[in-house]
């Protein structure tokens, strides 16, 4: 039993993966809560999937994925902004068309005769292969996000609670929306290295969505989301080590399991509450 727990930790790559995921967990605990509460989950998914052509392009050309990802993000963001403004076209529909097109383009590029070696890595990530640069980036990003969110906290709370009334509090929502969007793009770019194009959203949104079910204060929600991300990462890495399954996928599965458990717990509590109420009636 002890060996079952300690064995994985004797491997440097597992420890590094845990470090990387913990840093990303801090990102997801802070930023993820704002993504969930301000209805940006869909944007998060759109950005992550829309950047695929950039990542595959980088792999084909042999430039760093970070560069390709950044270019892909800018292209995805611009196309989303442009089509969302087409009059007479529901913006959600327009965005989903563009994102699906970009995702399809990325897959086509990936299936070209010169298929790059790392396509699976781009789609599903490679937590166990994170480089020092990845870890430093995640640390820098985590620190930046914690600082920005802490400084802006009062304003973000006031706008999030009452968007329409923000002007009466002397705040225009647009610049603060832009800050959240930039942080989201940065987080996607850094996290995609470890978690892959398809799983990054689960890591950014899943822990916060779980915390949303369990908490009714913002501070508690952020702390819980960070803990859920950490617990999911540890559980996922052990699963991956002992059952020899892909690390990114098992971490995602662990987070989704925690989300499911939170929903069940919530439903059970509600049911018990109703029984008690009925018994008193």
């Amino acid at each position, binding site marked *: 039993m002890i060996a079952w727990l300690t064995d994985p930790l004797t491997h440097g790559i597992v420890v590094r993966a845990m470090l990387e995921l913990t840093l990303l967990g801090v990102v997801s605990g802070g930023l993820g809560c704002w993504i969930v*509460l301000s209805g940006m989950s869909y944007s998060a998914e759109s950005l992550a999937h829309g950047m695929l052509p950039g990542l595959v392009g980088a792999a084909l050309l042999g430039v760093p994925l970070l560069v390709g990802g950044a270019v892909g993000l800018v292209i995805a963001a611009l196309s989303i902004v442009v089509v969302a403004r087409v009059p007479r076209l529901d913006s959600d529909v327009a965005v989903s068309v563009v994102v699906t097109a970009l995702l399809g383009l990325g897959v086509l590029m990936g299936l070209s005769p010169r298929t790059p070696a790392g396509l699976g890595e781009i789609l599903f990530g490679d937590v166990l292969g994170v480089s020092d640069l990845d870890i430093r980036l995640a640390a820098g990003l985590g620190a930046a996000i914690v600082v920005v969110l802490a*400084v*802006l*906290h*009062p*304003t973000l*709370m*006031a706008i*999030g*609670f*009452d968007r*329409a*009334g923000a*002007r*009466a*509090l*002397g*705040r225009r929502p647009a610049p603060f929306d832009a800050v959240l969007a930039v942080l989201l793009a940065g987080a996607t770019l850094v996290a995609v290295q470890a978690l892959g194009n398809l799983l990054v959203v689960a890591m950014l949104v899943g822990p916060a969505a779980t915390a*949303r079910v369990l*908490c*009714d*204060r*913002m501070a*508690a*929600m952020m702390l819980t989301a960070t803990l859920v991300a950490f617990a999911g990462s540890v559980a996922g890495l052990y699963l991956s080590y002992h059952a020899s399954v892909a690390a990114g996928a098992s971490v995602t599965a662990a987070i989704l399991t925690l989300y499911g458990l939170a929903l069940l717990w919530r439903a059970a509590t509600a049911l018990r509450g109703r029984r008690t109420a009925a018994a008193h009636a």
Partner: protein
Amino acid sequence: MPEPVTRGEVLVDADDLAATYPGATVPAVASATFVVHGGERVSVLGPNGGGKSTLFRVLTGELTLSSGALALPAGRVALVPQTERSRLDFPVSALDVALMGAVSRMPWWRRPSRADRALAREALDRVGLADRAQRTFGDLSGGQRQRVLVARALVQDAPLLLLDEPFSGLDVPSAERLRALLDDLAAEGRGLLMATHDIEQARSWDRVLCLNRVQIAFGPPASTLTAQVIERTYGSEIVTLPGGVELGILPAHHHHHDHGGHGS
């Protein structure tokens, strides 16, 4: 913290103000010409869709005016929104919401101080919710939420308060308390603009502004609220019994409606 302005200073000066929502062809408010001084309680009367909330959006800067002129010499404006606009799923306590009022007095990089927290507690106390400070906002009753939003406006400590139907959903004791609180705020020299559907209450305030997409009238209620003005405001008739007792508002004759089948 700024002192409330002294009685009599001009807080709002609207001159033939009109505002149109983006995409709309006709203005939602037009020809609004009125002045609010410190210490004045002004009620805004009008039917559903009459433009009361729209006027408040213009005063807070959420909606830009499409023509006319608007001066707000005192600067800061506090708004108590119509409750149905507030979010129930946000993870905040009543105290958190009241404290949000402090944001309007700070630059974006500052956080509320200990004094602001004390002010937020005091504001909750003034609306009779001191014992509910730690409750989750979304779990409060409609009337309690309304009062928390009043507390948020108190924490803003603005010289001008806009209240969008603040009495809707309040029980009698809470309404009494709010009425006394609003009178106190006016006595401190603040200007109050309140959207309401209660003509009787409008009669007891200092000024009344009647809005039905255009301004119908503005002035002291005794001389302004004539049967004719009320009829034009609501586009309907007040039934006046012999002896001058107003029974209520009946819908206008439906001659402009075409129900079909009439002359066929």
